[in-house]
């Protein structure tokens, strides 16, 4: 065939179309799970340590299961769920993906995940703590495995607390500061710090607004009733939680830009030594250890009626559209075996969800002496707390919490109005379609 300008342009156009489509995320995944038997695609985001942990675990899974291949697709967190949603909508999702517990319900409740109740071995759930197993349930059935958790504790600048005369730092969960004691600590720090420095910063920015619920749980409160549909936040516990946290702003205990919609994260405020304490998860340990040039320690979050914590971390789930449910289930079960979870959590500074690992403890690769504080705090999470966060309507409830807490913290909205608006917002979010 003669190659003239038209045929060249036509050919070049045809050749560039797949590239254009791939660039826009419309092309199918590189590994076609339907074509190769025994091949899974696994999409996740992760820190360097987490991705290294996943790669090592996949190698071991492939060695233990001859003929099985897992293709790891690591993506930035910012693109993770817009991509997953688009792939689910387009009908070509990965076989397995990683999902935070607060987002899990959005997928499980809308028929996007593989029901594992008939796939997993009898007694599989006994491996996990009740709160971890509750976090992967939807309508009484498991739709994922709890891969790891994380929870927030108080990270503090030792010099700042010492300078304020605060030396009696709690070392056990039972002796954690009460709310009154914690407020006294913040008041003391407020008195000793210059005006542009603050006692505390809380990590409730963005989707971290679910961490505000820890204050509610510490007061023995709920935001959803046991049916996981009816709002239950307008209660004495809700009033206590809103009042206590609103006071952080009015008393100058936290910077004004520490609100829930701020783009400045609490950890960055603490890193910059603008605050003496912050609430933060174990995942911060490697970064803080390598970058901070001040001495810092960790202690338990304050308690009110009881201790509590946010059930952070991520589940691993298989999609309902997977063509290899058995292999996917096998992979999920493998990733939560004792040795695998122990190695992953230790190297990435995360907390296990297996009851036996909670019992025996775990040593982080970095700052291992802090492990008992995080593991101890995680033990204060109750199944009744984590099951509420697994609600299929959590993404809408998160928006309600963000809007109303922002109004309370920055706009000075009264506690009564805040709770009333939260109640109507949650009711609308959980109303049947």
């Amino acid at each position, binding site marked *: 065939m003669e190659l003239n300008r*038209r045929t060249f342009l036509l050919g070049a156009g045809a050749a560039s179309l797949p590239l254009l489509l791939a660039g826009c995320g419309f092309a199918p995944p590189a590994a076609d799970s339907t074509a190769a038997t025994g091949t899974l695609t696994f999409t996740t985001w992760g820190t360097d340590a987490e991705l290294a942990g996943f790669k090592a675990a996949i190698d071991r899974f492939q060695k233990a299961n001859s003929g099985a291949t897992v293709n790891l697709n690591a993506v930035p967190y910012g693109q993770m769920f817009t991509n997953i*949603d688009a792939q689910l*909508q387009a009908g070509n999702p990965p076989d397995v993906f990683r999902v935070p517990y607060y987002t899990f319900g959005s997928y499980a409740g*809308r028929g996007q995940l593989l029901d594992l109740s008939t796939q997993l071995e009898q007694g599989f759930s006994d491996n996990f703590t009740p709160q971890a197993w509750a976090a992967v349930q939807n309508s009484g059935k498991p739709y994922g495995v709890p891969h790891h958790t994380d929870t927030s504790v108080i990270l503090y600048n030792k010099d700042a607390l010492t300078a304020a005369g605060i030396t009696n730092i709690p070392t056990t969960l039972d002796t954690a500061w009460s709310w009154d004691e914690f407020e006294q600590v913040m008041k003391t720090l407020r008195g000793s710090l210059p005006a542009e420095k603050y006692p505390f910063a809380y990590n409730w920015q963005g989707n971290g607004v679910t961490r505000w619920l820890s204050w509610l749980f510490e007061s023995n409160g709920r935001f959803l009733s046991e049916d996981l549909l009816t709002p239950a936040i307008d209660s004495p516990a809700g009033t206590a939680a809103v009042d206590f946290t609103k006071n952080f702003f009015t008393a100058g205990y936290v*910077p004004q*830009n520490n609100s829930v919609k701020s*783009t*400045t994260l609490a950890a960055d405020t603490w890193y910059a030594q603008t605050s003496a304490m912050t609430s933060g998860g174990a995942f911060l340990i490697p970064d803080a250890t390598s970058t901070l040039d001040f001495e810092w320690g960790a202690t338990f979050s304050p308690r009110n009626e009881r201790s509590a914590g946010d059930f952070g971390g991520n589940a691993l789930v298989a999609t309902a559209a997977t063509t290899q449910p058995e292999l996917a289930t096998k992979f999920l079960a493998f990733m939560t075996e004792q040795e695998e979870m122990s190695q992953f959590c230790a190297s990435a500074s995360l907390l296990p969800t297996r009851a036996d690992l909670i019992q025996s403890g775990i040593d982080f690769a970095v700052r291992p002496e802090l492990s008992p504080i995080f593991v101890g705090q995680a033990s204060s999470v109750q199944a009744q707390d984590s099951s509420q966060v697994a609600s299929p309507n959590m993404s809408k409830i998160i928006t309600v919490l963000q809007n109303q807490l922002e109004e309370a913290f920055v706009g000075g909205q009264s506690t009564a109005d805040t709770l009333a608006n939260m109640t109507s917002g949650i009711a609308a979010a959980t109303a049947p379609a």
Partner: protein
Amino acid sequence: MSTASASATASIPGSVSAAAPSATARTVASSGRGGRRRRLWRANLAGYAFLTPNLVLLGLFVLFPLVSAVVISFEKTNGFGSGTFAGLDNYARLATDPVFWRSTFNTALFTALVTPLSMLLGLGAAVLLNSVLPARGLFRSILILPMAISGVATALIGVLVFDQNNGILDKLLRFAGLQTIPWQSGGAAAFTSVVLVTLWWRVGFNMLIYLAGLQSISPELYEAARLDGAGGWQRFRFLTVPLVGPSSFFLLIMNVIYSFQVFDIVFVLTGGGPQNATSVLVTYAYNNGFVTRDQGYAAAIGVVLLLITLVFTAVQWRASRTRDLVD
């Protein structure tokens, strides 16, 4: 009548021959018309062949999503699977949604501030840098540099500048003993920070377009005006401003469309806060579409945005007297 004259007569479209053409003349004329039609058809085909890749991409990535968005805006969705037809429910909801109205107001205010300011500053900079200013090449590069940076990176630099605890600006104010500004927790200050970062990003583009417009103006016009006794301001007002009219029209449309579609700077710099003080239509649509997965409602916001932009562009197109003044 010769065949040549018959052919010539037939070649004039719409002309009527005074005498009836002979059979030979009709045959030749018909053959001539057929040849020209074929040539015209080939030329048209070549034109469409060149247009086809663009039309395909435009259809695939603009028209198809556009029509789909309009369809989805009439549906109730939950993020996955097909939606259910909901008529005008999403639009009715918009009418009673205070955050939508706040976002619409913010978008309009942002457009009203950013469009004239970026054009004025761009024109001022272009006039200065079109003169014999020393090191004008350096200044041009400095102004154009932000264009080479993505909106997200620009906004991240903005975060470093406008962080109210550790940002450069408030540290300078504190150092000078002045009152600091709550760039992140004060609604008006946060909105101002978004406008300032946008201007830093957009002025270079406006300057570049105006600079190209200025350089196409003949220097003799200015010389003649000077001989007629026109001062500097008069030359600017009565020569420069009208003669860069096509550039102004282009920039007005581009700036308005950009301003209505602003997303990255707001999303990264303020996240729409505090208390929705910087929420704009696209960030609000994004939150509904990708955070709460209410895509039907998000699509309705997008359709409203499209209509506003179309109406504005149409009005400008009809109202502008200088849009066609291109050589």
